[in-house]
């Protein structure tokens, strides 16, 4: 099953200069990339290099100025925002640096969110299962403010994997955590990925984390190169 789940061709992103004066600002310049099913790709690079920008374009959260992205064989350029959202639904997971749990919802409800969007039956049981898988079964009814950062990120992992996605985007998933906690999260992330066999696009500063991926790419000043 060597088919491609994500394919980017000559992606460029420029934005207008802050106050409309001066030349446009180039964030990404002619980036191409392809991710096969089940493959784990790490994107590393210094701060400000454009990693998050790239991730946003690949996931269809933002639109490129130039170039194209194909996700699951569908061209994102041809879709409007809602079309891209529909494409992600149930098939794409996210793990963010700052967790992004909804503060008003309990851990279990946060996990249920993606299941409900995917239209999964008995989402309550599935959410509980997913939480159990990250070792948080007994914290299911707690709201994010009652959880530590590491616990919050584990809830986020449960949320991302509950729907059994084909593609997972992670932007600095351990960036807000201390080293030990970060490692636990990384272990869980890779364990869950191995189980589900989903493709992973991982943005990180952390070279040991990157080392666990199948392939490493380096971003510098908006350009992407294969790692040395």
């Amino acid at each position, binding site marked *: 099953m060597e088919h491609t789940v994500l394919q980017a061709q000559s992606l460029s992103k420029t934005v207008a200069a802050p106050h409309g004066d001066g030349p446009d600002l180039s964030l990404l310049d002619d980036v191409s990339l392809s991710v096969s099913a089940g493959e784990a790709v790490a994107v590393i690079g210094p701060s400000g290099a454009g990693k*998050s920008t790239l*991730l*946003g374009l690949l*996931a269809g*959260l*933002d639109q490129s100025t130039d170039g194209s992205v194909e996700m699951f064989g569908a061209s994102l350029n041809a879709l409007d*925002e*809602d079309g891209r*959202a*529909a*494409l*992600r*639904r*149930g098939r*794409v*997971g*996210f793990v*963010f640096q*700052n967790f*992004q749990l*909804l*503060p*008003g919802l309990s851990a279990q409800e946060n996990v249920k*969110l*993606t299941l409900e*969007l*995917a239209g999964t039956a008995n989402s309550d049981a599935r959410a509980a299962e997913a939480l159990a898988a990250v070792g948080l079964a007994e914290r299911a009814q707690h709201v994010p403010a009652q959880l530590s*950062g590491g616990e919050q990120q584990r809830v986020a992992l449960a949320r991302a994997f509950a729907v059994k996605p084909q593609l997972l985007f992670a*932007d600095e998933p351990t960036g807000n955590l201390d080293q030990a906690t970060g490692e636990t999260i990384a272990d869980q992330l890779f364990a869950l990925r191995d189980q589900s066999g989903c493709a992973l696009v991982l943005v990180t500063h952390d070279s040991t984390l990157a080392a666990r991926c199948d392939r490493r790419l380096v971003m510098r000043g908006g350009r992407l190169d294969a790692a040395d």
Partner: protein
Amino acid sequence: MPLIDSLRRGVGSALAAEGRVVVFALALAVAAVSGVGFFTERVGGALSARADDMLGGDLLLRDNHPLPEVVASEIETLDLQFVSLLTFPSVALNADDDSALVSVKVVEAGYPLRGELATSTARFGGESLTGDIPEPGEFWVEERLLSELGAELGDTLYVGSLGFPVTRVITYESDRGGSLFQIAPRVMFNRADLAAAELLGEGSRVRYTTQLVGDVNALETLQESLSEQAHPGLRVETVSDARPQVQNSLDRVGRFLGMAAMLTVLVAGAAVAVSLQEQVARASDEAAVRRAFGATHREVLLRVLRLLGWQAALGIVIGLVLGLALQGAISSVLSFLFTTELPAPGAGPVIAGAATAIVTLAGFGLPAVLGIQRVPVMRVLRKEMGAPPPAAWAVIGSAVLALAVLLLWQARDVVLAGLVLGALLGATAVLYALAAGLQWLAGRVAGNLRPGWRFGVAAIARRGAAGRLQLTATGLGLLSMLLLSTVGTDLLRTWQRELPADLPNLFLVNVQTDAADDVQARLEELTGDAVEIYPMTRGRLVALNGTPVTPEDFPEEARRTVGREWNLTSSETLRADNIITAGEWWEPGAQVSEVSLEDELAVRMGVSLGDTLTLRVAGVDVDATITSLREVDWDNFKPNFFAILHPSVREGLATTFMTSVRLNDNQRDGAVADIVRDYPGVTALDVRSLIERISGLIDAGASAVRYTLVLTLLAGAVVLIAGVQASTAVRVRESALQRVLGASRDEVRWSVLGEFATLGAAAGIVAAVVATLAGQLVARLVFDVTLTPSIWPLIVGPVGSGAGLALAGWLAARGAASQPPGVLLRRL
């Protein structure tokens, strides 16, 4: 139980965090609008019921002849209920042939169709409502007649050829009409005795009255056909012809309540706007995350709308319950007005309340909520990417539109609604400009303050547009609270003045000169208080500036007054409740032929200072020159006079005395009867029933004002809380940072206190000044009363709001001050 589950969930989401403020603010707006709606509906009902009472029916036909056959048969065809009455002046005699002018009313079973007849079986005894009419062979009379003729209950009186015992005293007759003092005392007897009375001969001035009740359409049909048939002399009277005396006061209550409701809605709207801002900010975060995981725009928007829907529903339900409680409280004060059970409150106020909630929420929240659709999904990766704020014109436009709709609904008057809207926008603009000014100033002065305070004041400058909105909303809340409480308390005070607790409920007239001192002394002993007794003579105007005049020589509007005998009094000194509007009151001790005239009558008659009136009193003519004009408060239930003569003019004229006192039932027991027995000429006018009914209405109005004031104050408090809550998150974060960067707890506390106290005081000063000015205007233009200028709002406003806001802010931010910096750091 999936239904209960989703209900619980919906309510839970609606009440989460800022949602509570949104719901409570909406509830207050709904409560104000529906409560006031319920009240006006019921008072309106009460008033028209009273007007019906005063007619004695829904429709009245009056004529100097019996009802034409055609009309009578039409009434029968239309299936209307009716009774016929005759009234005419006559003379009543006692056994000693003493006579008195009386006003006879001949009634038949069923009278009165509307309203009340109250009687007593003892002189000056307790009254009770009656459904009866006099039996054939008996008279019911007013107390006045008994005292005029020196008769007792049970004595036989003679009217025409009838000689019947008096079996009851009439104490209240809601359709009596006419002025208390003008009409001769009533004698009422049964229609069956009419023929035997032999009173309807040539020249008798009989008025035939038919009271009608029945189906509204049938009544209208009758009215139409009467106006087509042309029956000369037949007059049709409807409810609109009968205005209860207290209508003016109640009109004012209505206007005040309307204004209070409008302001409450406005203030609640401001609270909704402020707290929705925060709710929308939170919802934007959620929307971005949901969209990243594949939710569509529509789903995200529906979610937020569903949340607002829950909040609206909760606000409406809570508000209606509050509104019903409010009107229940008011109605219980009013209950004496209704002899029958009130119908259940109508749907009108319920719909108005619900519509208010929806319009408020939509007008103040929709632009922000719709903005959620524009939140970029990239926000999940780059926090600083927010939705572009909704266009200012959209926010302002929709708020103004909502306000216009609400005001128009409340005021039902385009001009009034426009004026209020204009004033509100003006006040808002002033507040916003001042908020901007304050921010600018705070930025300037902050550097010179002590450290803790300095952070706080500098923070005001940092808040930007959100801070200006908060300050404006706070100012509007304070403004409304201050405005309503000053105008409201002043209205209440005015009414208390108009209807003091010691309102006289007994008038004694025809007190002879030799009896005056003793009557006065007895009354003073009874009441334990000074009792004023006024000399009174009756005189007719016969000449103006030496030229004989008749009523026809005067403008139309003065003829009736000029044609009547005037009650004249005389006095050395000016009574406090009379105000000289032109000329001067006489110096004490002088010997002058002068008269002081009521100013409106002077205008109607076209006379002015310097004109000389010739008055004929019991055959004697006296001249008096007008040297002053007075404003008289006719509604104060004290003896009031068109003309006051200088004492030297009255000398030698036939004079009696009159007085008015308030007696409770114990004091009245026997004492009044004694006076009337000892001085047979004295006439006692018992107005207890009337006074009770009037002061009851006023009380109801006053309590309505009080209850709505409380609502508005609550709404004001909510807007303050909303403002504080809206910025708590930012402040906690800032406080935490300050702590982390080395500020002490005290400094952090002072910073929060300083910011809120300064904000509160600034908003308070502006609000107090604007409220004081607006209060004067509103009182004068809308309520027709003069506001007593007071310094209190200017003190209470700034101090109260400064302290209140500081307290609220401190409570909200105290968590940040008390926790160790390490804990805070993790939360940032």
